[in-house]
């Protein structure tokens, strides 16, 4: 699962696709359509634009299928196609997308410094206002529509690289290795981007849940 190149299973699938096997294509669509749509929605403003992005991405997949050399896994190749198209569409729309301009600078701490005790306190660097216990919250609040909308908007507000890393890792379920390979970034860089992205999404959730 962590392999960043084509697996044996994917190699078989590729062969069937290139031979024009409709069932193989249908299986591919079923595996990735939902993931692609969710990724696209973090880059563009509306679901209908996201659907167009995914449609274009599939056409891109068909166009590239014969030339695909298997240097990345089929999955990460497909995801990078949808990310690229979604990014382009997102940039084009960005004048009318207020959340894109709200993205904070990269040096923002994971948790605001005023949540911690100061240097002249008896326990400097320890919680002043500790986080709440979310295990006490009901599942339908935690994973309800409203909460998931908050998560989508929080991801949409992230700087590009963070957004791509968190969607690939935590939404699409790619491995760290697959992400590094696709984005040509180091393992350490991938971890930092993921850390920052998760911290910001958590902060948005906290504002929503503990409001």
């Amino acid at each position, binding site marked *: 699962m962590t392999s960043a190149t084509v697996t044996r299973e994917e190699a078989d699938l590729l062969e069937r696709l290139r031979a024009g096997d409709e069932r193989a294509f249908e299986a591919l669509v079923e595996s990735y359509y939902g993931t692609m749509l969710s990724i696209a929605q973090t880059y563009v403003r509306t679901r209908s634009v996201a659907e167009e992005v995914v449609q274009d991405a599939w056409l891109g997949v068909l166009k590239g299928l014969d030339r695909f050399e298997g240097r990345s896994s089929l999955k990460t190749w497909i995801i990078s196609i949808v990310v690229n198209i979604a990014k382009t569409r997102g940039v084009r729309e960005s004048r009318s997308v207020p959340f894109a301009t709200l993205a904070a600078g990269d040096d923002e701490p994971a948790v605001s410094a005023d949540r911690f005790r100061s240097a002249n306190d008896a326990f400097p660097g320890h919680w002043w206002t*500790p986080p709440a216990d*979310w295990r006490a919250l009901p599942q339908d609040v935690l994973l309800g529509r409203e909460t998931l909308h908050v998560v989508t908007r929080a991801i949409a507000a992230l700087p590009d690289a963070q957004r791509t890393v968190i969607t690939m890792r935590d939404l699409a379920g790619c491995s760290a290795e697959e992400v590094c390979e696709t984005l040509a970034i180091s393992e350490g860089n991938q971890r930092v981007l993921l850390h920052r992205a998760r911290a910001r999404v958590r902060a948005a959730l906290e504002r929503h849940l503990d409001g």
Partner: protein
Amino acid sequence: MRARGYGRRSNGISMADNTEHITCQEVVDLVSDYIEAALPSEQAALFEQHLNFCGGCMNYVEQLRTTVASVGALREEAVPADVKAELLAAFRDWRRT
């Protein structure tokens, strides 16, 4: 809930100055790597030692796990029938060219 005394100057119990420990503020920067099992073993040990004493950081770790799960929950599964039909038509076109 407060972080319990766990620091260099904890409630009159004298700890050697070189006692290694990490603060809550440092913990929050390590949680993502901890979940990834990407912390070097020495740092992971300090991290877990801290969690044993600190309810606030325990909650933070849980919150970050919940965050990861909620991002995963955005994934949609079903492909609408009309979309599938359109894509299959595109595939047939592609095959003919």
